């Protein structure tokens, strides 16, 4: 496996990746992630990368991530500056081995995603829930960056 330059904060600019992502759609989900995937996401094992969406409105940012079969206890969330770091482990919950296996498509292992947030957030008010295998993180924006109407006087 190629050596990956370790960038601090697992630098990942979502917009930059978006452009590459459009052309590399299939490669993102390859089981054996090539150098491209590894460099961009700072993978630990190179095994599995869960898909992520980022949305925003005037008050908040919402990040959604597919985490099928992962109990919330196996997911760790933290915010550092303008980056949301999601890490965890997807563990095998069934006994599939060479003798009894017909298909083995599901990926497992440690994962880590660094999501660059489009606006500063109030880290004390972040909430997250995990339902039906989807992690949803709600990050309220800091008051000073919320859009405000400015009155024109005179």
């Amino acid at each position: 496996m190629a050596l990956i330059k370790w960038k601090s904060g697992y630098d990942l600019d979502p917009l930059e990746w978006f452009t590459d992502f459009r052309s590399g759609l299939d490669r993102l989900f390859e089981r054996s992630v090539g150098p491209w995937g590894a460099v961009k996401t700072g993978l630990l094992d190179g095994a599995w990368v869960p898909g992520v969406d980022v949305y925003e409105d005037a008050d908040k940012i919402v990040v959604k991530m597919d985490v099928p079969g992962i109990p919330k206890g196996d997911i760790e969330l933290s915010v550092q500056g303008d980056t949301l770091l999601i890490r965890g482990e997807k563990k095998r919950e069934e006994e599939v081995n060479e003798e009894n296996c017909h298909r083995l498509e599901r990926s497992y292992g440690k994962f880590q995603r660094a999501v660059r947030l489009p606006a500063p957030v109030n880290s004390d008010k972040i909430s997250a829930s995990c339902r039906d295998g989807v992690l949803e993180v709600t990050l309220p924006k800091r008051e000073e960056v919320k859009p405000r109407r400015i009155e024109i006087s005179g």
Partner: protein
Amino acid sequence: MDERMEVGKEIVPVVNIREEPDRVVLTAEMPGVEKEKLDIRVEGDEVTIEGSRSPSPAGMREIYRERRADAYRRRFVLGPSIDRSGIDAQLAEGVLTLTLRKVKAQTPKKIKIS
């Protein structure tokens, strides 16, 4: 072959299939699908699993989107050893577990020769 791809607006869910002495167990990843939006049909020799999930949150702007499609669909052919009436489905944490019991092996009938 990687089948976890989006064909049009649908996702082909990834599955594990394992065989045990009395059953075949299939687990499929369908994150975001609630029980009410899951549909499993057996038609002849085919079982179809389908599910849908709600699209992006209303009123919010998309900054970045990887999870595009909102529907899952995949079909499987059932072998003759599967008991069509013995299919059980469980959905938890976005993973569907289908347990397909096998037809009980019939003990050969001894025919008396008179």
